[in-house]
């Protein structure tokens, strides 16, 4: 290779590394929430925005992508429309590929949810029910709901126990 070719190769290599690095930097970045924090994730996560945790307000959660589905639930009357971010999408952003989620609620209820539950078309962290945000009294602000009517295999005691409402913390265990 002549000198010029070497230079071009070097520049290409730098550019490649630069692109790769900025890609990494982008995926390492999670915006900061601007209003009240509704969810804190800790433990084995690759992306953080507050010390070693990832904190979210509702808008930041919604920016990860909103999924809507209709279902009845054993705790409510009539068909409900839930809007939320798929657990799968949230975990993808945080670089979580396996393990267990220890999800805890404002009332200190806690349950372990295997990361394998976080599939496309699976559970969402709902932040709206029937078009409105849920107050604490209405089991909000966040409720992990599975599409029970769409996938009958979700109509089980185990899944009901994982359908944690008043969710506020998730610790990712390896």
């Amino acid at each position: 290779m002549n000198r010029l070719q070497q230079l071009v190769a070097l520049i290409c290599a730098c550019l490649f590394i630069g692109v790769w690095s900025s890609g990494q930097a982008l995926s390492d970045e999670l915006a900061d929430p601007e209003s009240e924090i509704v969810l804190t994730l800790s433990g084995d996560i690759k992306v953080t925005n507050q010390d070693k945790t990832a904190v979210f307000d509702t808008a930041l959660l919604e920016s990860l992508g909103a999924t809507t589905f209709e279902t009845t639930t054993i705790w409510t009357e009539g068909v409900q429309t839930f809007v939320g971010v798929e657990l799968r999408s949230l975990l993808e952003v945080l670089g979580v590929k396996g393990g267990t989620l220890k999800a805890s609620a404002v009332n200190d209820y806690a349950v372990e949810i295997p990361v394998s539950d976080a599939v496309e078309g699976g559970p969402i962290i709902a932040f709206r029910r029937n078009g409105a945000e849920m107050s604490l009294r209405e089991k909000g602000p966040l409720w992990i709901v599975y599409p029970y009517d769409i996938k009958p295999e979700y109509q089980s005691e185990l899944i009901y126990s994982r359908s944690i409402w008043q969710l506020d913390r998730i610790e990712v265990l390896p």
Partner: protein
Amino acid sequence: MATANSDSVQWSLAQSDVELLALQATISDAIIDATVPVSTVRTKFDIFYSRARTLSTSPLFEDVRKDPSMGLALRSIEDYLENSVALVDSDDKTLRDALPRLK
């Protein structure tokens, strides 16, 4: 929709007891100790409120509601919550002054 088994009904009823006791304890604490923020009373109230709503409206508890003494207890709870909501939703000072009435 498959119904959950009676274990989870029992668990929920026990949990509502726990949450009511927690609310009462928090109210007592806040009355005695002015440094306890009324927001903790509001949170415990909301937690109990959401549990009571589930007991009153969820298909899961239809059989429970049909039981005469449980039905009566639930209606007392509903009355208490309805009468207390306005106070709980008021400003901090009003709520703090009204705490003895919430017990």
